[in-house]
């Protein structure tokens, strides 16, 4: 009898999105998520994991990340970040991967948090931090619709207290 071991397919994990769509990912890649890992280790026969908080577009994006880092460790982003450009803070692949619109980054971060994928969560946070980097108080308030809660004299005082921030 002849066995072709190479042809034995890896177990796949089915991830069910908020819309009910199924996205498949290799088990070895899915184990990047501590949430999925605990499901698999807790219940031996589990091959499907329901993710009611995450839509299928985001799940596909997460799977792309899982597959890329299946066999290697993601780079660590140093704190604080050195630039508002992600390619100067992390690898080119990571920078390209996270080069998405704001809503997508927020959704990815929420998903990473839910799936307990710390490197992906850190990547999203660093991307968001880039948006704060090198911006004035007024620019930040305008962009994120932040209401100024400080009375004007207090605001002046804040500036007065921190002249060294400009050093």
């Amino acid at each position, binding site marked *: 009898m002849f066995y072709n071991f190479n042809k034995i397919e890896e177990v796949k994990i089915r991830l069910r999105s908020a819309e009910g769509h199924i996205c498949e990912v290799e088990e070895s890649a899915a184990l990047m998520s501590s949430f999925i890992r605990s499901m698999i280790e807790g219940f031996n026969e589990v091959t499907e994991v329901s993710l009611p908080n995450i839509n299928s577009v985001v799940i596909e994006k997460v799977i792309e990340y899982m597959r890329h880092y299946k066999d290697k460790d993601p780079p660590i982003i140093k704190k604080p970040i050195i630039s508002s450009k992600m390619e100067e803070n992390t690898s080119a692949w990571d920078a390209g991967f996270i080069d998405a619109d704001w809503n997508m980054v927020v959704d990815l971060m929420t998903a990473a948090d839910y799936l307990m994928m710390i490197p992906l969560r850190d990547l999203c946070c660093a991307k*968001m931090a880039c948006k704060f980097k090198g911006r004035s108080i007024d620019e930040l308030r305008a962009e994120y619709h932040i209401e100024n809660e400080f009375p004007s004299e207090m605001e002046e005082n804040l500036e007065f207290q921190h002249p060294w921030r400009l050093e």
Partner: protein
Amino acid sequence: MQSSNILSHILSYLTYQELLACSCLNKHFQALCNNTFLWRREALRIGIGNLELFGEPLLGIQNSQKSSSSSKWKELLRGLIESKKYWPTDHSVLEPSDTNNLVKEFLSILREPQMPPPTLRRESKCLPTIFQELLTYYLIDESPAALPSFDDFMTEDILAKLFDWSERLENEFKGSVEKNQFTIARWALKDPKFDSWTLSPFRLSIESTTDTYDQEDDLCQLSQKFPLKNSSPFLIKLYYAIKKTSSVHSKLILASILENEDDLSLCNDYITKWNSYCASIKELNQKYQAFCTLFNEIFNKTHEKTPNFPPFSLLRPMVFQWKRKVFETVKDKLINTALDLLNKWRSDQIDEELSYLLIKIVQALIDHSVNELNVRFLDHSQFYTDGIYEILHQKTVVATLEYYKTLKNLPADKLSEALEKDMNIIQRVFLKRTQIEIEKIRNEIEISAWKSCFCESYKEFKAGICCVNSNVTENLLDSEFGRILFNVDFNKNRIRQFIETLQWRNDKMVENIQHFLKLFERKVELQEKLIDDLIIEEENEQCGFMLEQSPEERILFSLTNDISPQQFMGIVINTDLL
């Protein structure tokens, strides 16, 4: 993760400038930015640099368990950033960009000095520490080997420009008040609490008229009223900037050291950072050579007689700042930990790593007990210091006496083994002076134990077994051993028989007698001047260094005791040196 936690996590990727901007956005951001972890990390990043160098990971310390407040770290960081304002920006001497580069390089060297390669890190007792090596070069013409320069800034070139203005800078010291400031600064007189006050001309005038200046409240008020003047001489301002910057850096170091949860980690951390600071001093001394040379040259010109006192260098003000801000707070912990480790070593309770830590702690304490004069006599059995090592020495001797008391009940041969082992520890850790003092104690105890042992054996001796006349017998009979037995029995023949019996039996006692006689010889040696001491004295006398220091030298060269300007001026006037 809650939105606040996510925001906190995002904020952790920002620098202190961006955090300050964010804290002005609204109250929510203000609260989030008030995170101890963030400010601690930024203060340490700016002040200490690569945290990995000190064994602390740069990442992953999101949730600090420390009880310290964010405002403490914010203030430390603020002090560090604001120290830039103390650096003089006099357009006619240095361009603002030059001053800026001076500050940048100064901070950068404090943050990450070029440490010697691991093999040269003075990790063995037989090698001096970085600091001691620096001191030995201080008064003679040899400078420490130049460090390779990898920097973008060129402090040495910038400071060399000062020579173009030396005449003008010299003229700034024509008035007597400025002259006094110069004198005080040159000797780095130490006034722990009131830095600006030290350099204020008002202090000197008040000192000469009233003795009430030591009332702290008055001093505080006066210090605020008369800070370092804008019109102060340029060199004084530069000196003051160096002192102030070293001071804020030392405060930050202390805060980071005090975070250690146990005394062992604290001592280990202290030693790492002290070594790093010494490497900074070494590097900065080199880079600021032009400034120091000019400072000394102008001083020699403006003062009629040049006293043979320590020349000005960055070492003195920087060491004083460290001593006040860091060392004074942790010195008791260092001593207690050293004694604790010594006790554990004696009872075989520590591994090689901890015994090595003990050696390093003692070295660090020695560093704060030496000056340029006495560092050359470290291995002298009469080495004396008014520094912290003296306390360690006294406590070690007392602890040793206590320990030896516990050994007294052992049989003489076991006691001898235990004392031998203990001496090996002492010799590995402490200075010659402590070794000799402990060796004297050991000698007394061991000789006394052997005496009792020999007398006891003699009492048990039954005479008349054999007669073997030999030179060995006669020698032993005439030795200290024989004298001991004469004290017990006047019968010389019986003692001779006893010795012969011991030889005939090939008893181990003969070996013990030989050992005892060696101890006795050593005891006599220890009472006289040691050959090693004579060699050290001879070598140093050729360079003009003496073991004995005059009272004036003790005060002026001291790196350990604070001296008030009043004391200093008293010495200067009494010795008529200025």
